[in-house]
């Protein structure tokens, strides 16, 4: 340590808590007040907690020594309702899990049921799914970057850019599925509607113009000195901890672990596309921000290839049954690489119209479990930014 003000974690009264994480450096307080800890409850109504999340933070001065996340303020009994409705009846509920990316939730659920029932999917539907999933990824990452800058104190401006662009995507979702946010579009064995050539042309036009927006966005944000000062070296997550905690998605890749289910599983038709998986080096908040930006550029590539190659044909397997759908007894786990990480659905069928067990593996819930390790030794203001970079949606965390 070159800075004499900053002591090693072992100098702090509770070394056992802090020694677990290498990046946690704390500033000891040498005055008569030292030792008085302050407990602050952030949330559930707090502008930076992205919904109704609550953090009980124990502070020494302004430094976090303990952070306890409190979940469950949006527990909407998703899994219990899923066990009491038919397989198809759960599809609209999956929209409301991660309400920024309903299309990927739909796909993950459809994939699980298709695995359970052995249902094939037509070629064109696979392409449509890839197109919609990558569009969702663009929307999610754009909005995440906007919200992250909100947490940094920009007061809405980057979010206005993101939402301006998001509206263009949302309009396309609406013209295809009839709903802006809750698309409810995928079905077991295909998609609900066949996109017209005009719709695909509109997507193509939007996607081709997207890198220009991204350049503008990055020019405004990426080199910004405040961003660099507030995010570089903040909230480091080591690759070992990330793997042990089951972190997935851009957050895992920011820590330097090259794991992307699109490459690892090759579900759908992803092996046909040429794209790279960006990987970070430090695992700090800045890397997590850059992962989103770089992934958006790769998504644009996938979209361009998919829009070029999409074949004609039906989008629904004619043999698929939606009404009175009773899969054979068995179990299946379907997972995809959602914008936030691995979103998976685990289903057990007993041959009845309802699943016997319906379980959601929500990426933002798992990613949130390491929030304490990232925040220890940082200030309260940093914890807000770190939480923003995790990318949580409370509908999915609490389910």
């Amino acid at each position, binding site marked *: 340590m070159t800075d004499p003000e900053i002591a090693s974690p072992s100098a702090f009264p509770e070394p056992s808590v802090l020694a677990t994480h290498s990046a946690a450096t704390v500033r000891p307080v040498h005055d008569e007040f030292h030792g008085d800890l302050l407990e602050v409850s952030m949330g*559930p*109504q*707090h*502008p930076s907690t992205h*919904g*109704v999340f609550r953090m009980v933070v124990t502070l020494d001065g302004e430094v976090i020594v303990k952070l306890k996340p409190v979940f*469950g*303020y*949006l*527990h*909407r*009994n998703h899994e*219990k*309702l899923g066990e*009491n409705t038919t397989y198809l009846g759960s599809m*609209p*509920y999956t929209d*409301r899990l991660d*309400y*920024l990316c309903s299309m990927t939730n739909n796909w993950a659920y459809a994939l699980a049921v298709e695995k359970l029932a052995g249902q094939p999917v037509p070629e064109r539907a696979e392409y449509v799914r890839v197109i919609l999933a990558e569009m969702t990824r663009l929307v999610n990452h754009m909005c995440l970057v906007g919200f992250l800058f909100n947490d940094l104190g920009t007061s*809405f401006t980057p*979010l*206005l850019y993101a*939402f*301006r662009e*998001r*509206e263009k995507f949302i309009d396309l979702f609406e013209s295809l599925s009839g709903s*802006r*946010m*809750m698309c409810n579009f995928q079905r077991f064995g295909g998609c609900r509607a066949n996109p017209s050539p005009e719709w695909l042309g509109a997507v193509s036009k939007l996607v081709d113009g997207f890198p220009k927006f991204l350049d503008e966005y990055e020019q405004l944000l990426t080199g910004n000195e405040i961003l660099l000062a507030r995010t570089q070296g903040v909230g480091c997550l080591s690759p070992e901890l990330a793997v042990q905690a089951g972190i997935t998605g851009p957050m895992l890749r920011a820590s330097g672990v090259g794991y992307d289910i699109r490459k690892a599983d090759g579900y759908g038709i992803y092996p046909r596309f040429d794209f790279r998986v960006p990987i970070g080096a430090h695992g700090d908040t800045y890397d997590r921000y850059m992962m989103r930006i770089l992934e958006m550029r790769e998504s644009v590539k996938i979209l361009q290839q998919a829009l070029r190659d999409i074949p004609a044909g039906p989008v629904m397997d004619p043999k698929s049954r939606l009404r009175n759908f009773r899969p054979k007894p068995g179990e299946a786990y379907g997972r995809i690489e959602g914008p936030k990480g691995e979103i998976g659905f685990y289903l057990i069928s007993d041959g009845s119209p309802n699943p016997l067990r319906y379980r959601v593996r929500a990426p933002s819930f798992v990613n949130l479990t390491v929030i304490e390790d990232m925040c220890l030794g940082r200030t309260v203001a940093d914890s807000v930014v770190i939480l923003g970079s995790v990318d949580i949606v*409370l*509908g999915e965390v609490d389910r």
Partner: protein
Amino acid sequence: MTPEAPITDNEREELRRQGIMLTSLQEIYNWGRSNSVWPLQFGLACCAIEMIATATARFDIARFGAEVFRPSPRQADLMIVSGTVTKKMAPQVIRLWNQMPEPKYCIAMGACAISGGPFKQGYNVLKGIDRFIPVDIYIPGCPPRPEALLNGLIELQKKIRGEKLTGPNAARHLRPDGPGERLVPEFGEHDLNPPHDPEVWQAPSLPRKT
């Protein structure tokens, strides 16, 4: 108390052309209030995203003077209950409502805030925020479009403009006997305790033929 509309609108317009502006205290007070409604920056679930979309450039809630989203309930006039209220969250929502100063208004945005919506059957979902908070405007939808929220806001503005300053029908915040804080339920073992505020909401009784 002055009678309603002592002069007609035509007469007033005529006077305005002559350079004389006539108004009543009630009118100008309500006009000012209705055009500067500050909502509480408070998102619960999916509808919050549409609420943010309403605040952004395309829909621009600033056109109606309601763009100042306040994170503190003490500075807010309007609570937009945007999303599912769970039983764990309901005490906090009602506490926030109690912390808002009068005059205050409540918009129940979306099916969940109105009745529990698609999650009504869930064991942890409050079946409508109107069981504890007096709701002024209900906006159906799952989630409602931003245009619907704007329409709800316009309806609220109409409601504010129609409020009386004096008399038996005076607005809630001007009546000395007007209700103060609402009952904050307890997050009990099985349900909220009590499950609804009897002053605000009673279970509807079915009309029976005798």
